[in-house]
């Protein structure tokens, strides 16, 4: 647990909860108020300061819907969402939030500098600070050469990059990233991961959704897996991926000659199927298992229901 939080308040748990949802659900309605799609079924979540939280799920499973509900962009059908202890529809919470939408929805007639200047103004930043921060962010996302071009001329990845810069203009405490790596080149993806880890190092909270499971596995502390709007898995990444019943042994500098000795020791303790090499169980396997399992046997998975939010590291 981050030390700052434990000293700041007698009720660390309250001050530490950045996002909280209670029975949050969303049914999209058509113009006449008829139900069209239950995009999110009652969801209880608690996300704490300094966490990197991943939302996973197949297309249309309600990840973006969850994020929009947290941002107050859409209103819940029932239940409540709180961000920094305030209702999600309260605008003042946005002072401390950064949001990168699914696609970078920006003003095409502005150039990169004007875009960041505009969003900086919305936070009431003074001119020097705006100039400094937007220059730094443009540099960071690698658009220095294209900063005077209108966004309508940008490629998909470039638009994505300026979108990221836009989300960070106010140095937010909570960052919501909806598929941050979509459209980015391999270097950009790498930089994105570094950025997220850097945000965590600076004590920020990150909520992200992504289909690149390897990346999620690398950066996320906890994940939730949604399927058809329902929560199927929730827990710490390392715990979820720990395959119980199989013990993994890793060692550095072990000469191949020693393999036989290790095997012999393990065999003496009655271990079977001994295998020595790189670990193979991945988030990808877990993800596929959850999805297949749910398609085969609809209903709430026992494991998700049992999992409570972890206490951080």
């Amino acid at each position, binding site marked *: 647990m981050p030390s700052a939080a434990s000293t700041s308040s007698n009720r660390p748990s309250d001050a530490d909860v950045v996002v909280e949802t209670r029975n949050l659900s969303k049914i999209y309605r058509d113009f006449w*108020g008829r139900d069209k799609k239950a995009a999110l079924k009652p969801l209880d979540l608690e996300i704490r300061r300094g966490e990197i939280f991943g939302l996973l799920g197949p297309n249309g499973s309600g990840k973006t819907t969850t994020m*929009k509900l947290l941002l107050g962009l859409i209103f819940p059908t029932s239940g409540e969402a709180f961000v920094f202890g305030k209702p999600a529809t309260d*605008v003042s919470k946005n002072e401390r939030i950064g949001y990168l939408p699914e*696609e*970078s929805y920006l003003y095409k*007639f502005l150039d990169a500098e004007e875009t960041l200047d505009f969003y900086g103004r919305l936070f009431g930043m003074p001119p020097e600070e705006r100039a400094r921060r937007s220059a730094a962010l443009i540099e960071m996302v690698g658009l220095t050469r294209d900063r005077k071009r209108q966004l309508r001329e940008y490629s998909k990845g470039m638009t994505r990059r300026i979108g990221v810069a836009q989300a960070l203009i106010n140095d937010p405490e909570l960052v919501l990233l909806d598929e941050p790596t979509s459209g980015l080149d391999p270097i950009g993806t790498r930089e994105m991961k570094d950025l997220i880890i850097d945000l965590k190092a600076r004590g920020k909270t990150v909520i992200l959704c992504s289909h690149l499971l390897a990346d999620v596995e690398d950066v996320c502390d906890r994940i939730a897996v949604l399927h058809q709007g329902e929560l199927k898995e929730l827990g710490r990444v390392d715990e979820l991926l720990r395959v119980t019943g199989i013990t993994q042994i890793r060692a550095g500098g072990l000469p191949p000659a020693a393999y036989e000795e290790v095997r012999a020791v393990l065999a003496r303790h009655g271990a079977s199927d001994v295998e020595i090499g790189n670990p193979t169980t991945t988030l990808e396997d877990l993800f596929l298992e959850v999805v297949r399992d749910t398609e085969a046997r609809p209903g709430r998975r026992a494991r998700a229901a049992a999992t409570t939010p972890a206490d951080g590291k």
Partner: protein
Amino acid sequence: MVLEQEIPRFAAWIGPALLTFLLTVGLVSLFVGLAAWLVQAARSGPLDAGDRVYRGILTGLRDLAGTSPGRVWALARLAIQEAVRRNVLVVLAVFALVILFAGWFLDPASVNPGRLYLGFILGASTFLVCTVNLVLAVFSLPADIKSKAIQTVTTKPVRTGEIVLGRFLGFAIVGTVLLTLMGLAGWAFVVRSVQHEHELTAGGLQEIRDDEGTLLGYEGRTGSGRGHRHFVRLDAEGNGIAENTQGHRHRITSRPDGGEMVSTVGPAEGLLEARRPLRGTLRFLDREGKPASKGISVGAEWAYRQFIEGGTAAAAIWTFDGITEEAFPEGLPLEMTIRVFRTYKGTITEGIHGTVQLQNPSNKLRSEAIPIVAREFTIEELRIPRRLNTVLADGRVQEADLFRDFVSDGRVEVWLQCLEPAQYYGVAQADFYLRLGNGSFAWNYAKGCLGAWFAMLIVTALGVMFSTFLSAPVALVAAVAVLLVGQFREFISRLFQSQLTGDATIAPGGGPIESLYRIVSQTSITLELDPTPAVQAMKLADMVLLAPMRVAAGVFPSLSALGTGDFVAGGFDIPGDLLAADAAETLAYVAAFCIAGAFCLRAREVAS
């Protein structure tokens, strides 16, 4: 220029107006709140709905209070950038084209070209700027919502009120710039178009000599300029004026040049003026000389212009108040616009003869009749001198003083009578006035542009409000519908009153269904329909259709009521009271539309 009603003092107007405004806003909010509650209640039960609506209003108000000028300005800048990058400035090119073509279409030889040009320029710029701003306002927010750019804005600490206000402000600035440029170009166009010169040669003048042969002066005509010529009357030295034609005069000065007289015709005077009138109240006497509530209606004119018959005791009497020697040291400068209705043609180029007299309202002392000639479409000027003759009861003529003998308590009556039997004079209250002085025409033109500016502000706010909850094309139609109902609000309320009272004379022809029936069956609108059950049902349906329109007519803005172009074109100074009232009305509409827009946008899920 026709004034349909008196312009109240602003100080007296603002109180009741504010009260009406607050009452209307209160009623509308109550109604809308109730509607919102009903919709919510249908979904989630009455208690929950009440809670939601109450909380929505409360947080909405708190958000409004938290409006930050910095964010509004950021959003306004964005709107300006959007407008500029959408090439709105093209409209200036359109305006330039309009001006160029106007030079061909507007007839410089018309009765009053100044009025024609001014009316056209002010009308064209108002229309253009309102159209551009309406389109900008209506398409902007829906485009943002469609492109989802709004999501990156509303996830910043931005209140919906700031989005609405920023949009409004940005487009208002764009409209202001457009209007300023158009106003300046229009000014240059009008001033250049009405400027003209006449030549006056010795050949065009005739000497006038008395019986002894001494030179009294000259008479003649100027040369042609912009399609007209003036009659000229000069004194013996060759100084004088080219008389009123097409609403203006020229001063003429001459100097001897080697035995010949060389005359110079000065620039046009009275074309672009801003008269400040002192207006009176009007009553009529009928042909027997008894007080009449109205003159004779000759049917061909609007109801407010009444007619008096020539050669009878019929008279139109204005009572002017506030007449002091200090205000009018050189006598009363009376200006008259008199309509002429001829029952026989007579000499059409000659005017119809009549008289003007003063009467003391207290002791009924009447001055000698001053002869006048009424010509159509021109403002006749008559300076009533300080010293006047009065005819006593025994027939003696006595000299009297204007202020001492005819003015009592600052009030004086001016009587107009027509002398020619079977001809009629038509007058309205605003047609006779005393000229208090002149305002600056340039300033008056600027005030006229201010009227266009008010219209632009209202249209922009209206467009932005509708765009918060309707898609762009629908919002456009809705805004145009509101403006149309507002435009005809007088008519709609008269029509409704006529339907309610069954008095067809207020607004003949009936409501929408009845008039459609009359068109199809080719029934005259003045013909009463037999009250068969079918007709009764039709009238009832009309009432049902008209009622909401009547309510709307009481609330919606009328751009033409805000327009002050008539004053400018007619050559009258726009009264400050009117301008202040218009400004207050504009502010009220803009505020109401912006707040309504903020609430609508707030209640909407911008991301779905």
